[in-house]
């Protein structure tokens, strides 16, 4: 039963502003990802929530109570670190029991709760091993059990999969989601991997230069990005400069791209005549018998789909996800169909 409200969080390192008014909320039981490239402030935000850093301004409210002044040991938050941060001199059991020992929980109760936590992360039987005798995936599962066993009010995960190889990453990722949902713990998850953020999160906060540029569901940040930066960070996107010519309805615009006139959904913040960008995801374009003429520059057959780079008559390059059943070769003249319902018009903001 934990709700988090973060408002106006700022942090300065010397002359540089690491956090510039970060605002975020997490509802009870929600997993919120902080997504962005390195240096965007996502880890700094998480460390402020954990209490390892003191923000210069702003507030972090947990169930209404501002916790900025509270030291980390009084916060009752479980933290999972990128490099696992297991105590190397303690066994798996002792690592997981650490938070219980510190809380002076009776030994019998400790035994029971550690056993439960280890069963949850499927590590039963490894209690007496030292961390160094475990694989990376096992170590991160111990770290997860250690954070969960104290029944934290909040779970904080700092790139927990970054040090794992691809196969383990998948396994641990689903385990984290499963465990978080089962326990109903509110969680913040820092990552620079958009696929990870999309797959795991209830909501994603995309960060840029110490600010949250968009905070929405994975579907929304992918299909209706607030600006080109978000669109590019969340996946492949074609960006065409466009001018919203006419407002047809709330969030529906008529635009002209060269000779072609389209009716597309777009941000409500746009103004008629202002400069804008039209985003076309590769899957919003397809090859068709008629439509916009184009020439194939490159084609890569990927099995389930086919990736084509094409050039329009005016030289604009587009990438599209074509059906794998149609053989195309560089140099072919083709026609493009645009799925206007899945295009998106957004303000042109410098990335």
């Amino acid at each position, binding site marked *: 039963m934990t709700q988090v409200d973060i408002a106006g969080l700022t942090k300065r390192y010397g002359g540089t502003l690491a956090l510039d008014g970060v605002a975020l909320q997490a509802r009870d039981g929600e997993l919120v990802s902080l997504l962005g490239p390195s240096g965007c402030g996502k880890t700094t935000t998480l460390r402020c929530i*954990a209490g390892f850093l003191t923000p210069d301004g702003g507030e972090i409210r947990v169930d209404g109570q501002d916790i900025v002044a509270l030291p980390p040991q009084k916060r009752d938050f479980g933290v999972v670190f990128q490099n696992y941060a297991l105590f190397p001199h303690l066994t798996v059991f002792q690592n997981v029991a650490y938070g219980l020992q*510190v809380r002076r929980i009776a030994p019998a109760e400790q035994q029971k709760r550690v056993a439960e936590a280890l069963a949850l992360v499927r590590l039963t039987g490894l209690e007496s091993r030292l961390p160094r005798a475990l694989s990376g995936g096992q170590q991160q599962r111990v770290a997860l059990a250690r954070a969960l066993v104290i029944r934290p009010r909040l779970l904080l995960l700092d790139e927990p999969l970054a040090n794992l190889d691809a196969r383990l990453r998948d396994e641990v990722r689903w385990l984290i989601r499963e465990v978080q949902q089962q326990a109903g713990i509110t969680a913040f998850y820092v990552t620079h991997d958009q696929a990870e953020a999309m797959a795991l999160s209830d909501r994603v906060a995309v960060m840029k230069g110490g600010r949250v540029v968009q905070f929405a569901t994975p579907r929304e940040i992918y299909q209706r990005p607030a600006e080109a930066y978000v669109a590019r960070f969340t996946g492949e996107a074609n960006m065409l400069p466009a001018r919203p010519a006419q407002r047809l309805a709330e969030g529906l615009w008529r635009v002209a791209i060269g000779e072609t006139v389209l009716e597309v959904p777009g941000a409500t913040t746009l103004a008629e005549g202002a400069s804008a960008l039209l985003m076309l995801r590769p899957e919003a374009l397809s090859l068709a018998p008629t439509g916009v003429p184009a020439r194939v520059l490159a084609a890569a057959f990927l099995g389930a789909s086919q990736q084509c780079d094409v050039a329009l008559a005016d030289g604009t390059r587009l990438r599209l996800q074509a059906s794998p059943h149609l053989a195309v070769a560089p140099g072919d003249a083709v026609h493009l169909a645009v799925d206007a319902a899945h295009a998106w018009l957004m303000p042109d903001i410098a990335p």
Partner: protein
Amino acid sequence: MKTRLLLGLPAVALLLLFFVLPYVEMVAMSFRAPASGLPFGEGHTLLHYQRALGDTLYLGALGRSLLMGGVVTLLCLLLSFPLALHLSRTQGRWHVVFFACIVSPLLIGVLVRNFGWMLLLTVDGPANRWLLAAGLIERPLRVLFTPGLVVLALVHVFTPFMVLPIATALRNISPALREASTSLGAGRFETFWRVTLPLAFPGVQAGVVLVFVLSVAAYVTPALLGGQGVALMPAIVVRELIGSFAWPFGAALAVVMAVATLSVVAVFTLLTQGLAERTRA
């Protein structure tokens, strides 16, 4: 494989020449017969070991040396841990300054350093004059030529050997471990006790062995600052070798001292091996 063996040859030769051979020679010497007018005579005997191990004079000196080594080591450890903690957490220019302060006792030759102690602590020396002037004492303290001063001077000079390995061990502890500990509910003191202190143990073990061996074998400082009252093992060995010119007996005493020191070190290492293995980074 062959080139690797070849590359190792100089080191092996050096060790053999300057480390193994002298020890073998010393052990052999300790079994030689005594002679008058010569360092040693013809034939071999166990007599020297009987004498060294049967006389309370020598056993007492050995006991005192080991005890003093233990006291110096313990005081060094207590003094060094906070210093090492501080050294491991300072950065940049201050790290260099602090590091220089820590190793400063080693930058001064042993004679000059001990002469400094003598000048400072004589009955009418500056230390006594200041203390008298400040009204802290009523009559001059007689610290020079006491075992206490020997211990103090040895702690002073051996502190770097304790601080540096401990600081290295402390620096190897990932800051994330302390953060993990606090996030799990442990305060600063509990985190120190449960995480920092145990993980510093490899450094503590190295420092303890170094300082103990060095202080048991220390000769010059006890000779200069300890006066005539306290007979320690190294002084007796030197007296036999150089004063009495009794090489075989001196060698036997040296072997007894070395074996005793190494035994203490071996027992300590064995007892703490489990902890050291666990905490080695």
